[in-house]
């Protein structure tokens, strides 16, 4: 079977049906058994003007990163598509509307910007849409039809997929979409002379039997939270985390839970801490600016030892920053943000799959270790859509991880009892005999405020030691490649890990002696494994999406060696190509 690995971008204006056609394409290709990774970007501004891009990498191999270059660009809007042309591969293809109602002024047509070596297929999108549906709204479907015809996608099957997508709508909507698709398909079959070699047709992989879920990181987090027994979600709208709230708000009340859209992020984490204190599982999700507001209460969860799950989907910062762009620059605040010595558990999934598993783990850990667990996503991970094997919901024993006090312990109940592993059995309100005071002041084992010279050191140590247990319950760092005598070791975290992994695999194909490691648990830090990896490598490279190399800075004291860095703050996900280029540079 020939390899298929094609990146398609649909680019239009808000209202062109860009995102929905991208979704149809991704879902359909997934149903055909392809691996997909999609990523939509849309303006943070109001509807009507902004540029929307539905990016989708479709492959019959494992997809680790979104792909830096586009192979096929579908232009639903000239101006936006022109501004997107820089991502098109040198030999890429553009599908565009070659029959707009009027002549465009010089340089306003995407067709005029096609670089030599690129290929453009003009399709009368508007005309065909009008013919099929009586309006311009079917242009996206006409384009999909043409795409299918030119690149060997089964038109009939895709038609049924479109039908399924709009099944809940009325017949007019269904028909106009289907007819538009069919018009585009037939027209392209009859009029387009194919001069490129991209195709899906000859290598259709067998549809896999296992059930696939097509979800993005936000959906995975929301689903995992609900599967983990979420009772209360509190949040304030903020890009790119808002979607989590929207999903939870639909699903949670059905299960007897509560979604509170709070007045601000402070209130959101307050509600979460309240619920956690009351013995229920609760979560909030936010992004950098909201995370800053939460930091005081986040520290209360640490000090008063109350479970709290906090998702921070990072975007460009500081301040309002770049709300719809990608960055990994909240690592510092996640690890260290807040006053005092404030140990917390930090998990950073590297894939949509791990968005699910990290979230279920987060609830388990938060409850067991009675502390703040931060899940670090980023704009890309939140919005990147993968078809993943339907995740396995947590088992019953993971759904209740609170360590409750024994009857004898309740006789003289010490809420903050100093124990070997640091976990003090927790009585939940309603438990007779467990009445006590929980407080953000430094406190004795009974919870009474104490400022003496012995209590604070003992309690501080307890809080730090306590979370160490989480290390053995989190996934071990992933090590790809040889175990010794490695020239270059790449260590990555978060959404950058996928690209780094792909880059390492490709570099190995080129004969470069390189290995890869990633870790989802960032606090407590898996020093042992990373040290071992480091010792096996002559040089260490850390690629990440922030200016100062926040992760590299965390690593370097542990490894006590110099670390080479690839820091990017373009607002885009780091690509496998960028990292590969750096690896090649180092290997030269």
């Amino acid at each position: 079977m020939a390899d298929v690995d094609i990146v398609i971008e649909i680019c239009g204006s808000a209202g062109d049906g860009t995102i929905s056609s991208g979704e149809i394409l991704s879902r359909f290709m997934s149903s055909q058994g392809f691996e997909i990774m999609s990523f939509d970007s849309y303006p943070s501004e109001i509807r009507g003007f902004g540029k929307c891009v539905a990016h989708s990498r479709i492959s019959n191999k494992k997809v680790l990163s979104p792909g830096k270059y586009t192979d096929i660009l579908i232009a639903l809007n000239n101006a936006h598509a022109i501004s997107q042309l820089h991502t098109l591969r040198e030999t890429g293809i553009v599908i565009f509307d070659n029959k707009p109602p009027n002549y465009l002024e010089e340089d306003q047509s995407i067709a005029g910007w096609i670089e030599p070596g690129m290929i453009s297929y003009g399709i009368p999108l508007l005309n065909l849409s009008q013919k099929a549906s009586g309006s311009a709204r079917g242009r996206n479907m006409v384009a999909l039809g043409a795409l299918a015809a030119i690149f060997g996608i089964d038109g009939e099957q895709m038609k049924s997929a479109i039908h399924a997508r709009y099944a809940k709508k009325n017949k007019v909507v269904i028909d106009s979409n289907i007819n538009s698709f069919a018009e585009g398909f037939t027209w392209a079959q009859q009029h387009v002379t194919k001069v490129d070699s991209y195709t899906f047709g000859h290598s259709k992989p067998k549809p896999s039997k296992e059930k696939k879920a097509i979800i993005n990181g936000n959906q995975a987090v929301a689903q995992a939270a609900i599967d983990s027994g979420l009772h209360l979600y509190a949040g304030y709208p903020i890009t790119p985390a808002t979607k989590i709230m929207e999903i939870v708000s639909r699903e949670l009340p059905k299960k007897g839970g509560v979604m509170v859209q709070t007045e601000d992020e402070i209130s959101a984490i307050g509600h979460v801490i309240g619920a956690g204190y009351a013995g229920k599982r609760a979560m909030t999700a936010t992004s950098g600016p909201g995370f800053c507001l939460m930091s005081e209460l986040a520290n209360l969860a640490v000090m008063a030892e109350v479970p709290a799950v906090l998702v921070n989907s990072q975007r460009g910062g500081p301040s309002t920053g770049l709300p719809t762009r990608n960055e990994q620059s909240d690592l510092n605040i996640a690890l260290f943000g807040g006053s005092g010595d404030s140990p917390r558990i930090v998990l950073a999934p590297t894939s949509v799959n791990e968005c699910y598993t990290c979230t279920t783990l987060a609830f388990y850990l938060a409850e067991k270790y009675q502390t703040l667990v931060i899940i670090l996503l980023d704009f890309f991970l939140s919005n990147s859509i993968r078809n993943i094997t339907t995740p396995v919901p947590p088992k019953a024993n993971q759904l209740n991880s609170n360590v409750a006090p024994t009857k004898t312990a309740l006789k003289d109940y010490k809420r903050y009892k100093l124990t070997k592993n640091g976990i003090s059995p927790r009585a939940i309100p309603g438990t007779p005999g467990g009445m006590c005071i929980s407080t953000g002041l430094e406190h004795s084992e009974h919870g009474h405020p104490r400022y003496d010279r012995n209590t604070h050191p003992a309690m501080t140590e307890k809080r730090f030691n306590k979370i160490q247990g989480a290390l053995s319950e989190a996934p071990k760092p992933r090590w790809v490649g040889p175990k010794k005598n490695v020239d270059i070791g790449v260590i990555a975290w978060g959404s950058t890990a996928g690209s780094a992994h792909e880059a390492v695999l490709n570099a190995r194909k080129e004969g470069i002696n390189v290995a890869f490691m990633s870790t989802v648990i960032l606090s407590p830090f898996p020093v042992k494994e990373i040290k071992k990896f480091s010792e096996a490598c002559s040089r260490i490279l850390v690629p990440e999406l922030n200016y100062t190399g926040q992760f590299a800075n965390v690593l370097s004291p542990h490894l006590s060696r110099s670390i080479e860095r690839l820091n990017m703050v373009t607002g885009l996900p780091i690509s496998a190509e960028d990292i590969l280029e750096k690896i090649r540079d180092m290997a030269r």
Partner: protein
Amino acid sequence: MDILKNSYLDEELEAVKKQGFLDYRTSQLPTWCPGCGYFGITHAIVQTCNDLQLKKEEVCVVSGIGCAGRYPIFMDVYGFHTVHGRSLPIAAGIKLSREELTVFAVAGDGDALGIGGGHLPHTIRRNVDITLFLFDNSIYGLTKGQTSPTTPLNQATNSHLKGNPDTPLKPVSLALAYGASFVARCYAGDVDGMKDVFRQAITHKGFSFIHIVTPCVTFDKTNITWGRLNGTVEPIEPVHDQTSFESALRLAEIPRLITGIFYQDKKRPSYMEIIRETQS
């Protein structure tokens, strides 16, 4: 110690113990200044709990920071002493998770109206079934005498030696304007009046707002003092219609120490009732 044994005091204590309310107290001695109005309020709260026969393990008291913030330490219930200004969201989070619990939020004027002022209208409009005890002494006590959101205009404080330039908020009017379903005012010197209001507030299904005027004997020697307030209390006339928002507002705007229940809407569903009805 032996001298005290079997003394008159012991007998008194036994008698008081029999009344039951002491069960709601911890062994911790309050750290408030002698003469502080908070003693009276505490007394009224534990007595009300006793009167209502609330199970101790089903009572949660959430406080913020300030002299009032220490309050949960002295009550033998589930106490949560949190951070400055955030008692309301946390109390709401508790109630929305465990409806069987009776949840109190305790906050000073700086806590509830200053740093945490943003949470008040929203907790009110959600009508979460909790009771807010607003200990209003019109001063920042714990930090030693700075201006608070209810410090009268021109009163000299440690942060405004030449007098407070900021117009004070009117807590009862504010709560009414925000649409609270239960609004009352009490005076810390009137234990019976407080008990009466507290009982109704706690049993009210929805958000109860209790404004408690209480002197800070240490940092306010001129304005809200026992001396000036004792005897000025005006209980609300029985003719007042507690279901009338307009009358309540009119009453609230009178700048005297009027106490009692200004407004109560018994029909309005609480947040959990609304959620259950509309969201699932």
